[in-house]
């Protein structure tokens, strides 16, 4: 029976992409339990809802997180539009899917880089982020922003992308797709990487269900659940299959995200083929009166935007339940009983986006 020590993991830690505090109770390099403590990056964004016009609040909603920013803004807009029964033009919905899928790609590439860094493979980290630069270049030229797009608004989108440009982008994505395949080959087949990720952080199917996991954490444990299949936005016209892998370990979650990169490229291809020529926005007047739970699929999982309005220009309440918040109970279960060297790999495998969790 060894002596127990408490190792503070975070909030400032070079391996963590965002500040979360975990007190790890260790016994000779084996973690007995992990006690979380959050609140380091709480900015009180939800309280700004009562002070900002609901149309201007989109800019605040975007800034909940820098990685999944577009999908936050589109989730919020979707909620307001559902409450006010606004019919968003089809072209705007397709463009929202276009930017959402680009967001998903850049988020997964960012994750691949940080994940490689967590097990000491800096070379992969550099390569993943280099590929990500090409995706960010596409986002910058179509919307003006690399990470915060500012192109979603209540009633549609702000900017248009011409059909010819969309076709060119799809062609450039083919080069990116080959690079992504080469990169993910290493993640999935290199022996030292497999040594660090196979069998690590196993989350069984029943645990994933009970503990309310979301996103690749849920799909890596064999549960087929992807909010895009409910057909919100333009997804009801697009063909997509949720990517599911059984295994429940970090390796399976990595496989899910690697396959989702390919699935995103396919969705962008479909958007370019099917996008209709309509308006990109409608005029919105009045204030939202009612409530709605808007559900969207973020790169990290299912996000819920709850909006409640009373008819005036300020909402009464905006609550965001982000996927990382839902993934914290599974994280704590996975950390119990693992080795200390597995801790960064497991923490990163749920793709922690603490700025989303804290708002």
């Amino acid at each position, binding site marked *: 029976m060894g002596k127990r*020590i*408490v*190792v*503070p*993991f975070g909030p400032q*830690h*070079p*391996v963590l992409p965002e500040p979360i505090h975990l007190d790890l109770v*260790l016994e000779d*390099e084996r973690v007995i339990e992990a006690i979380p403590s959050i609140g380091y990056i709480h900015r009180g964004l939800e309280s700004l809802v009562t002070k900002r016009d609901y149309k201007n609040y989109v800019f605040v909603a975007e800034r909940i997180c820098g990685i999944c920013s577009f999908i936050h803004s589109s989730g919020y807009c979707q909620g307001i539009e559902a409450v006010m029964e606004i019919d968003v033009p089809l072209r705007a919905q397709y463009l929202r899917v276009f930017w959402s899928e680009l967001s998903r790609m850049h988020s997964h590439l960012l994750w691949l880089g940080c994940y*490689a*860094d*967590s*097990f*000491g*493979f*800096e*070379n992969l980290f*550099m*390569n993943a982020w*280099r590929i990500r630069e090409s995706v960010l270049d596409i986002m910058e030229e179509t919307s003006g922003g690399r990470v915060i797009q500012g192109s979603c608004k209540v009633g549609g989108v702000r900017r248009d992308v011409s059909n010819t440009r969309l076709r060119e982008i799809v062609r450039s994505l083919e080069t990116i797709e080959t690079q992504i395949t080469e990169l993910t080959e290493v993640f999935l087949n*290199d022996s*030292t*990487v497999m*040594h*660090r990720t196979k069998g690590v952080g196993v989350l069984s199917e029943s645990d994933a269900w009970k503990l309310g996991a979301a996103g690749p954490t849920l799909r890596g444990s064999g549960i087929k659940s992807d909010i895009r299949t409910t057909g919100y936005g333009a997804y009801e016209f697009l063909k997509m299959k949720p990517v599911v892998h059984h295994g429940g370990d970090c390796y399976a979650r990595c496989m899910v995200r690697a396959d989702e990169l390919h699935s995103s490229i396919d969705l962008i291809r479909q958007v370019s083929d099917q996008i209709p020529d309509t308006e990109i926005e409608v005029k919105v007047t009045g204030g939202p009166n009612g409530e709605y739970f808007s559900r969207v699929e973020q790169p990290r999982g299912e996000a819920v935007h709850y909006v409640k309005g009373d008819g005036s220009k300020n909402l009464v309440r905006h609550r965001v339940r982000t996927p990382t918040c839902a993934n914290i109970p599974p994280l704590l279960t996975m950390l119990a009983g693992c*080795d*200390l*060297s597995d*801790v*960064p790999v497991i923490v990163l495998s749920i793709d922690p986006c603490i700025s989303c969790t804290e708002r």
Partner: protein
Amino acid sequence: MNLIWIILFLVLAPFVGGLISGIDRIVTARMQGRVGPPILQPFYDIGKLFQKEKLRINGMQNFCILSYLVLIIVAGAIFFGGGDLLLVGFSLMLAHVFLVLAGETANSPYSHIGAQRELLQVMAVEPMLILYAVAFYIVAGSFTVATIIEHGALGISYIWLLPGVFFGLIYIFTIKLRKSPFDLSTSHHGHQELVKGLTTEISGPTFGLYEIAHLYEVVILLGMIGIFFAGAPLLCICALVLLYLLEVFVDCSTARVKWQLMVKSSWLVIGLVAFVNILALSLFW
């Protein structure tokens, strides 16, 4: 013992080690698609460290790091002065024990766990150093470096007689250099779960001393590999350059492994390859 060589080692080794470290960083950067720092960057870094405020955790830490440096220098002096290989091995081991003590005196859990991992690294490496000395005794008839080099110049080709031992030594070279896949206790980047592991709480001029000791150690290890090619100095330098580049390549293409794999694989290599080599030699030489 050859005094000139000792003085040359004492004075030139940090510069040689620093240049090697600088080239290492540029080659690593180019392999990752970056440009890399200037070649003299390690010197700028160490110089900067000595300008920093002296933040000591306690007096013991300073003493331990100083002992680490002194013992590494002693090991190098013995080696380059033509002395006993066994003494070199033990001096290196004692130096690392002091480094482990330096890690343990700090109050940080990262430092403690890094110190424990450093001990595991010593355990993985020491059998090889002893077998290395024994192998040369069997072939050259003496533990002293001077005699070994003499015999090498006279025509004994160590590399053909001791390939297994050579391979074993290269395997632990990765561990000693603190490169992936074996950069467990502390690594050149602070991106592991232990922040910077063993050296988390060492800062300022004390850390500068640690860095200089590491430079000395690199030169000693290159020397130890070099005497396999005694008698052919040009071949020796080419081999060392190729070997170092191989180490950088392995660093860039592997993830960090866990300590169980490091110790097991190291002992496996030592047991299967180096030990068998020595057994064969002792039966047929």
